[in-house]
């Protein structure tokens, strides 16, 4: 579903990604961990071209997406993204946040989009706030709306960029719960996170990144129990 070949990304003189090769199959839940500055978020943001790769190739469903001839907006419609800072549209209500993209891009009828929106908001447990503005929600509620907003475009893949890192501790659980149920439904997910419990429980594979490379990867139980690389060991010993 996603194939990445020798992906490099530099910001000026800073070489952030130094050659990533990766295959992500349909239905996989890939969790990316690693120290800050290791390039996890940059890698994720390259997948939907919020960052333009400096070199290398990214294929989605067999289509090379990082070339000039590709319609980037169409590619992004296949991939939902959830941000650390939620990024809900501040001037729109919860329901408008969820229905804007389907009505504007997919030309879904407003009534149909709202019906679908109600289902999605019910699914993330926040239907009672459909007329609230983002400023009136807690962090956990905002992030659940953000997930519903991304799902409204019926993506094939969901990208999560540290979705719980900006939340108060008591709100982390409600967001992880939604993500876990999404995983159970078979969604292909790529998740950058520091939540090792989630990685262990939900991840089908864990990638450990450091200094712009995937240093080691394995099934979560195996990686957490028997890390092979010294840097993985040292990282895990600091956070577990």
């Amino acid at each position, binding site marked *: 579903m996603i194939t990445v070949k020798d992906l490099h990304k530099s910001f000026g003189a800073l070489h952030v990604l130094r050659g990533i090769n990766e295959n992500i199959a349909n239905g996989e839940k890939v969790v990316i961990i690693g120290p800050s500055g290791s390039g996890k978020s940059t890698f994720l943001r390259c997948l939907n071209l919020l960052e333009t790769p400096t070199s290398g190739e990214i294929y989605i469903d067999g289509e090379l997406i990082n070339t000039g001839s590709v319609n980037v*907006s169409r590619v*992004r419609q296949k991939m*939902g993204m959830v941000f650390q800072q939620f990024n*809900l*549209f501040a001037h729109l*209500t919860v329901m408008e946040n969820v229905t804007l993209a389907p009505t*504007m891009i997919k030309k879904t009828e407003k009534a149909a989009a709202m019906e679908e929106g109600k289902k999605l908001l019910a699914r993330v447990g926040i239907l009672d706030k459909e007329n609230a*503005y*983002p400023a009136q929600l807690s962090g956990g509620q905002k992030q659940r709306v953000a997930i519903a907003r991304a799902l409204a475009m019926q993506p094939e893949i969901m990208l999560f960029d540290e979705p719980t890192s900006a939340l108060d501790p008591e709100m982390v659980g409600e967001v992880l719960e939604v993500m876990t149920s999404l995983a159970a439904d078979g969604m292909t997910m790529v998740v950058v996170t520091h939540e090792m419990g989630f990685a262990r429980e939900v991840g089908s594979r864990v990638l450990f990144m450091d200094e712009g490379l995937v240093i080691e990867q394995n099934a979560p139980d195996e990686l957490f129990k028997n890390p092979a690389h010294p840097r993985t060991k040292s990282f895990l010993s600091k956070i577990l």
Partner: protein
Amino acid sequence: MGDWFSRILDDFIQNFITESRYTLIIQGFTVTVYVSFLAAALGVIIGTALAFASMSKYKALKLPARGYIDIIRGTPAVTQLLIIYFVVFGSVRWHPAVIGAISFGINSGAYVAEIIRAGILSVDYGQTEAGLSLGMTRAQTMIKIVLPQAVKNIFPALCNEFIVLIKETAIIGYVGIMDLAKAGEFIRSRTFSAFMPLLGTAIIYFIVIKLLTKMFAAFEKKLRKSDIR
């Protein structure tokens, strides 16, 4: 007390009623309103175009826009008015008030451009990224996500610019056009009494701007609806 009042009344009659001088005030006021609105409309059009040009990644758009803004902000409005009236439109027989309005519009456009640019930059880039990640184009994101939020920051500054503009049109007397300020000054030169005509025109400016400010404030409140917690 009665003596004082009758003196003021005499002064008023002499300056505004005798020889129907109030018609000068009305004519001048009409010119001021006309020039202000025309200049404001032109300023917003020029300013919007300049704002987007100055934020463009294409140097062919960006550099001329920055140059325009630099030149306008770096020279006095009076000098610009004189140059546009006597040099640029020197041989064009348009209505002088129209030429004046064009000059103020060109001037205001530079300030409006900076107001709009700052308003757009004030919207967190995460909003744009969220729009793009859903599959919206850059134009769709700008129109549906960024601009509606930027307006809240642009509007108060734009109102302020409009108020400054109304008062700035008072320099149009430099090229011999009778606006409100010039009308007051003209009456003074006829009646040799400074207090009544000058204070009178000042009060008219003040009332107009006060009313506009009230209107703007009411509208701004509506814009801030989504900020309520």
